[in-house]
């Protein structure tokens, strides 16, 4: 990552700039109960209903850690190829805010549960980068303040208070908005495979703080600004682009960057300073006297490792080796575990590349258009497999297969039966095709002359014959016959 890549540079008025990005991702741990209390961690709920006396910080209440949250943090650390620390310590991060009843957040400062790791990120079909992970630690979420219910007051709901979060800190290894987006997307995929976070950005299960600085290529790190709480992958990209531009503008005008916390406003397409946050940076961390060090042995880690599912990188490599898929297709298929499973069911015992094409182009295309995910697909893996069988055995043409897919999508049913009952079978009978070819040739003497001079006209004839036969003629047979008859 140390070698500057000119293709990523941003052109300024006075030359090239390199943007340097690091990220802190807050991922809500998938668990039933909160990190240190027995209240529900489920999203939503009536105000202050998912709150125990511990979460409300009543005097005398003591935190007791949820062992599932520990397991999830370790499993995530393993998924990030990271060092797992058998001993970690909880600290109090002190700050004052109405939705933080304790007056401190229980977090891990000097001794996190997970140390350094790596994430391999596919930025484009032809580019992979490695992003270093600095650490992952467990901490409590705060409550939620609502500022729009009254002009003069804020309303506080503590349902989120005490919910377990994993803060995943990257190294400043990203050099463009595109890389940052791809990193978050990959991290989200890994978390969802592991099942330690649902990755739902709309509900705030995954939130990003983005550190952005710029420098002249080859120089040391510039002063960074932290953009807080960006809540979609698209906004992360936009926030980085506008923030890098802002910093370059200041530097090129001879100014200097103030290290500060900023907020991205997607509506205005700008970042602005959150000055009030500056003073609060004095968090006065100290070890939480209510909690003993968190300790476990290597056997505990090994057992969790043995139970991890196949992770996206391994699955991608297997798809390439086992099914002969191009790396990009394999990468697209493993983005979601459910998609990968769907593909494998479809491809089983069939032409895997054909299956991959159908899953990626037809199925995903259609699902995206309708805003559905693969679990909601009206076309099952078995049905799609049956369609592919019909293509492979030359019963239907590729064009008819698309129509058939549409029918199965909107009406359901067994593809084989539909082909039978609606007469969609491909015409391979040469006599019938020949008749259609002859008819088209006879009706278009002028075009026949043109075709003799310009063989690319053949395509037009193929189209006409297909039209005549309702798309059911075998395209190869049509092609062969036309070539023969037109003498091209």
């Amino acid at each position, binding site marked *: 990552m140390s070698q500057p890549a000119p293709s990523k540079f941003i052109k300024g008025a006075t030359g090239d700039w390199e943007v340097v990005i690091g990220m802190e991702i807050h991922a809500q741990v998938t668990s039933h*109960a909160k990190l240190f209390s027995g209240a529900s961690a489920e999203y939503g709920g009536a105000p*202050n*209903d998912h*709150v125990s*006396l511990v979460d409300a910080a009543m005097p005398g209440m003591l935190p007791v850690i949820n062992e599932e949250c520990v397991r999830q943090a370790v499993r995530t650390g393993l998924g990030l190829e990271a060092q797992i620390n058998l001993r970690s310590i909880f600290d109090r991060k002190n700050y004052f*805010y109405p939705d933080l009843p304790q007056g401190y957040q229980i977090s891990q400062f000097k001794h996190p549960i997970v140390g350094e790791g790596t994430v391999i990120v596919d930025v484009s079909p032809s580019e992979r980068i490695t992003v270093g992970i600095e650490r992952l630690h467990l901490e409590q979420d705060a409550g939620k303040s609502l500022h729009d219910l009254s002009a003069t007051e*804020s309303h*506080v709901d503590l349902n989120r208070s005490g919910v377990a979060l994993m803060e995943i800190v990257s190294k400043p290894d990203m050099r463009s908005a595109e890389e940052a987006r791809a990193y978050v997307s990959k991290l989200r995929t890994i978390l969802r495979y592991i099942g330690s976070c649902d990755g739902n950005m709309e509900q705030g299960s995954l939130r990003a703080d983005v550190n952005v600085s710029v420098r002249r290529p080859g120089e040391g790190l510039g002063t960074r600004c932290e953009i807080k709480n960006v809540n979609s992958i698209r906004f992360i990209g936009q926030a980085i682009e506008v923030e890098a531009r802002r910093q370059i503008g200041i530097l090129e005008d001879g100014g200097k960057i103030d290290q500060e916390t900023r907020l991205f406003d997607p509506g205005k397409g700008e970042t602005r300073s959150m000055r009030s946050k500056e003073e609060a940076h004095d968090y006065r961390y100290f070890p939480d006297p209510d909690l*003993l060090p968190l300790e476990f042995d290597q056997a505990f880690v090994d057992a969790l490792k043995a139970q991890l599912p196949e992770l996206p990188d391994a699955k991608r490599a297997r798809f390439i080796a086992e099914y002969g898929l191009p790396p990009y297709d394999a990468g697209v298929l493993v983005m979601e575990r459910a998609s990968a499973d769907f593909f494998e069911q479809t491809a089983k015992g069939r032409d895997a590349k054909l299956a991959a094409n159908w899953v990626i182009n037809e199925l995903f295309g259609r699902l995206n258009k309708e805003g559905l995910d693969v679990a909601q697909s009206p076309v099952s893996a078995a049905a799609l497999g049956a369609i592919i069988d019909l293509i492979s055995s030359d019963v239907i043409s590729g064009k008819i297969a698309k129509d058939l897919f549409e029918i199965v999508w909107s009406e359901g049913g067994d593809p084989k039966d539909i082909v039978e009952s609606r007469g969609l079978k491909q015409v391979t009978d040469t006599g019938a095709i020949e008749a259609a070819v002859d008819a088209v040739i006879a009706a278009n003497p002028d075009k026949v002359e043109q075709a003799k001079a310009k063989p690319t006209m053949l395509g037009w004839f193929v189209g006409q014959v297909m039209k005549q036969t309702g798309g059911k003629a075998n395209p190869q047979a049509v092609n062969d016959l036309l070539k023969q008859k037109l003498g091209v």
Partner: protein
Amino acid sequence: MSVDPAVVRRIAHLSRIAVEDKEVERLNGEINAILTFVETLSSVDVAGVEPIASVLPMQMKKRADVVTDGGIVDDILANAPVREDNYFVVPKVVE
């Protein structure tokens, strides 16, 4: 280590404790007295000693991931000076 009146004011502000100007001088003296007292500890040689996060020779207690608490909104809000629709209501705080 010692504090000065500016640090006293800053700590008070971070803790949202209202400290009047006339109290600052007295608090400054008291805090410095405490710090001087604690300073005795720095005479101990701790070279090569691991910092301890706990003095109890036991493993941390853990709970199973089961919802056993909550649904006690009236208890939670019992001491709230102002409540509305089961929310705590506080003076407006907004970025």
